[in-house]
């Protein structure tokens, strides 16, 4: 039974790896359960069995066929009564607990997941339809409010905080029958690119436990990669879904700003924050987006545009025509494949471009002249909004309070002890940028840059249907490597922040592996589309995923 569940945990050894000669002699061993319902399903367990020193560091996972949807498979099995929701959740919970001491991706594990699964089973037995995500164990980034579980945002200042309400995205998952399995680790309030800024623990990258999973949705990405959950919600302010997805070799979608309600997402930078999805396949990410997308009367910035059925855009591999991308134009952003990008990363991305061309697409280099302005402007805007959004953490209504003789001292002590270094740094920067006399030079200027970036993207997307770039200039780096060098950490967001500045949707797709100091590490390809055209990104991403050479 268990083996038939087979989370395709880090089943993302993509074709490029083979092209690079990373073919793994151990391949044969992974197919001893080939008779299972899903041949690919055994990989995870096999990987576990082989990983000894670093439990999950077995990156060159053989790939006999393209990534398949865990959710669809589980749904089919569930509805055929081949498996129960309780069995699904038990399987994932067991694996979650098994991996957790090494990966440390969870801040809280649900104590009611099995009860919720039993309820789903009950509903199924009564002939109810619990929804398209029935019994699917989903992890939630801890900056999303969950009524039944603590929600800390990775911050001491919300230690023990239990929200009285569910974030809209969370509520919609529950309404779709999902079982929330736990809350994942993150950089405090989403501020960071390595999850090392969490006040609670450092999460490891399942591909190499000595490395970071990326951030800020590092817990979600690592949990998906380690098979601790079927898929996960994250949030993306400057790359916080895409970069960890890239580092952990999973699929990450940052939807268009306004596509998913932010209600219940602890605000970091309100004009940039987006709730999005992480999964092991484009199908799963599409299914997740189906559940959470759409207008929310509680979020004035959420769009009332009609939500398509994202799954419908996905064409099964068997039905794809010979040149499935014929007639499509892609633009690879020139500024993202030159200086500042590790050559190996650039090479993997270039290989992906070759693959797209083989599928019939025309790929041209495009230049976004304002690209380099994005990072500094982003850090001004995000820090400014953060300085304001984090004012509410004052120790008065919730969170730990340091007792002091008078109000200002209480604020100072509570916030001084409650916030970590990176958050303090951004509050200080943002407060400075918004101060009288500096506003025009910083905030206003950054907003002007933002407008230019939006215009550049608009122009570039008129010429090409989808823009391409690496997700990050490097693969996962070592834990501790950049902790003392915040600027270098910020530079890692170079490829992703502009997309948030323009509010566009972008997909982070595993496109290959590179070797770094003996570790094989995944690299992500970023596909950027027009606003509210997630459907197109997912369609193309799915074709890419289904056709990349296996090894």
């Amino acid at each position, binding site marked *: 039974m268990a083996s038939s569940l087979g989370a395709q945990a880090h089943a993302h050894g993509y074709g490029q790896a083979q092209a690079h000669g990373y073919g793994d002699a151990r391949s044969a061993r992974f197919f001893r359960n080939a008779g299972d319902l899903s041949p690919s399903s055994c990989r995870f367990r096999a990987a576990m069995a082989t990983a000894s020193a670093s439990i999950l560091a077995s990156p060159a996972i053989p790939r006999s066929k393209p990534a398949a949807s865990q959710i669809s498979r589980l749904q089919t099995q569930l509805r055929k009564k081949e498996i129960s929701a309780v069995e699904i959740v038990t399987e994932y919970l067991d694996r979650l607990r098994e991996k957790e001491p090494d990966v440390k991706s969870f801040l809280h594990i649900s104590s009611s997941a099995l009860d919720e699964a039993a309820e789903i089973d009950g509903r199924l037995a009564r002939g109810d339809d619990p929804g398209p995500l029935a019994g699917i164990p989903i992890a939630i980034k801890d900056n999303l409010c969950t009524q039944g579980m603590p929600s800390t945002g990775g911050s001491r200042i919300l230690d023990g905080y239990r929200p009285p309400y569910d974030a809209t995205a969370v509520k919609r998952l529950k309404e779709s029958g999902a079982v929330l399995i736990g809350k994942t680790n993150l950089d405090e309030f989403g501020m960071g690119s390595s999850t090392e800024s969490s006040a609670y623990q450092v999460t490891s990258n399942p591909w190499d436990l000595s490395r970071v999973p990326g951030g800020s949705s590092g817990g979600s990405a690592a949990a998906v990669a380690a098979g601790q959950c079927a898929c996960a919600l994250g949030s993306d302010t400057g790359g916080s879904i895409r970069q960890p997805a890239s580092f952990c070799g999973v699929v990450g979608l940052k939807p268009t700003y306004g596509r998913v309600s932010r209600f219940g997402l602890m605000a970091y930078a309100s004009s940039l924050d987006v709730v999005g999805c992480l999964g092991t396949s484009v199908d799963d990410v599409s299914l997740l987006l189906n559940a959470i997308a759409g207008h929310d009367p509680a979020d*004035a910035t959420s769009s009332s545009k009609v939500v398509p059925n994202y799954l419908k855009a996905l064409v099964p591999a068997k039905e794809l025509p010979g040149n499935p991308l014929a007639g499509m134009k892609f633009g690879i952003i020139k500024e993202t494949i030159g200086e500042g990008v590790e050559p190996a990363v650039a090479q993997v991305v270039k290989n992906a471009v070759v693959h797209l061309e083989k599928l019939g697409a025309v790929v041209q280099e495009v230049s976004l002249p304002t690209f380099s302005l994005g990072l500094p402007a982003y850090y001004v805007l995000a820090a400014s909004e953060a300085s304001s959004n984090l004012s509410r953490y*004052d120790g008065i209504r919730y969170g730990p309070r340091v007792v002091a003789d008078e109000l200002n001292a209480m604020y100072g002590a509570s916030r001084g002890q409650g916030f970590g270094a990176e958050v303090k740094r951004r509050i200080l920067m943002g*407060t400075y940028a918004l101060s*009288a006399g500096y506003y025009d030079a910083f905030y206003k200027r950054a907003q002007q840059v933002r407008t230019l970036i939006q215009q550049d993207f608009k122009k570039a997307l008129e010429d090409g249907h989808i823009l391409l770039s690496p997700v990050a200039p490097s693969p996962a780096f070592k834990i501790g490597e950049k902790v003392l060098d915040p600027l270098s950490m910020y530079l890692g967001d170079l490829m992703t922040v502009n997309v948030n500045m323009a509010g566009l949707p972008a997909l982070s797709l595993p496109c290959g592996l590179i070797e770094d100091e003996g570790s094989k590490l995944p690299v992500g390809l970023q596909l950027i589309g027009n606003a509210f055209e997630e459907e197109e990104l997912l369609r193309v991403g799915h074709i890419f995923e289904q056709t990349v050479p296996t090894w």
Partner: protein
Amino acid sequence: MAMAMAMAVGSCESIVLLYSQPRIPRSALQIRCSSSLASKQTSSSSKIPLALQDFEAVIGVETHVQLGTATKAFCGCLSQYGAQPNSNVCPVCMGLPGALPVLNERVVDFAIKLGLALNCDLSLRSKFDRKQYFYADLPKGYQISQFDIPIARHGSIEVDLPVEYGGGHRKFGITRVHIEEDAGKLVHAGGGGRLSGSPYSLVDLNRAGVPLLEIVSEPDMRTGIEAAEYAAEVARVVKCLGIGSGSMAEGSLRCDVNVSVRPRGQAAFGTKVEIKNMNSCAAMHRAIDFEILRQVALHKEGLESKIRTVTMRAKEGLADYRYFPEPDLLELVLKQEQVDSINEALPELPNETRRRYEALGLSMQDVLVLADDKNVSEYFDSTLEQGADMKMAANWIMGDITAYLKTEKLSISDVKISPSVLAELVTLIKDGTISGKIGKEILPELIRNGGTAKEVIEAKGLTQISDEAEIASLVDKVLLENPKQLEAFKKGKTKLQGFFEGQVMRSTNGRVNPILMKKIVAQKLGLS
């Protein structure tokens, strides 16, 4: 007493205090303000004309109008006064992590109404901003407000000063009107509700997020009474538009006044002092006059620099609010049709009512009383529409009806006498069917129980005696019963004619037709 005084009138020291310390609770100050200043009224106001011979005061007012919407500005909580602490709260108005504001459309409608009523230019595109400061009653650490693009600006308001202050018509500029949210309320435990000496404070967030419109005036006022009248007119407009209760006493209309004094002929403004927390127009008037005198005295002693020095300190203490556009709310876009339809539906405004009454020929005293309250003026208008004599209707409303309302603590909408019945009553008196005295007699009955004047008159047997023969016999009886007076009359004491008339009237409890009766008395006395 001295300290309460200083805070109430905003002396220099108190300004420093207000800015450098957490804000003083409104409720606490209101109590002091109204009681402590009462005794100062006459002394301050009477010295004003002399003080202003050589000096000129410049006064501007910032008014916060609490809107009477059913729900709060950015969430669905009830916007209700006097509920149990923290009973009208939700994640949004408590500033919980992840909560987002959503604008209440009624607030926008109300803002448009006020903007139009104050003759403002409306901004078809405006936006919200965050005004940031830390305080225990401000759950998000910022207040959602409008900074550089308010919903309305460049308006004006017209007032008529009370006759007892010399009267006069004034027009004051309105700089801007903008939408914002109220903060919560702090209750200081112990210490008699004061901050100092209180061991701890309790936070009540029922008021947090209640919608406000802030009206900023131009510094166009020159005396306390002008500023007080300005505030009163704003309150009248608010009530007339039905957008709020406009009550200073309840704190639903709050004025902060900036006062400065300069020598006459000087173009530059003097140094201003802000006065806060006044709970009535009268208190505003007194506080401003007191402050004017205080500043004039400082000028005369050559100590105007003292004002300046202290105020600069206050300025240093001023928070930098770090305004920036509220990213959680969209730009506020008004449609011209929306504005037009609200404009068409605007009621007659207090100033328009006053001009209309003035044109009718009413005295300014009457105009001011009748137009002071929309309900009263509407009542008066209906009474006139029912054919009542204008002056008589005005007198009845301002006199007996108002007196009754005052003693019974009622409002005109509570009375059972309809305008048509008042018109009937007035007409009955005017055409001599009943005397004014009987009118006064039956009024309480009509106010309490309703019914028509005729019904009450008949039920009480109060119809007028108009039969000449009957009157003649009544007169005869009176003359017979008062032989001494009749003798005196005959000897030339003609004033006694009135005595006989009075006696006849009394003998009928005022039911006798006075004109006929007077005629017959004269006849019987051999005068005609």
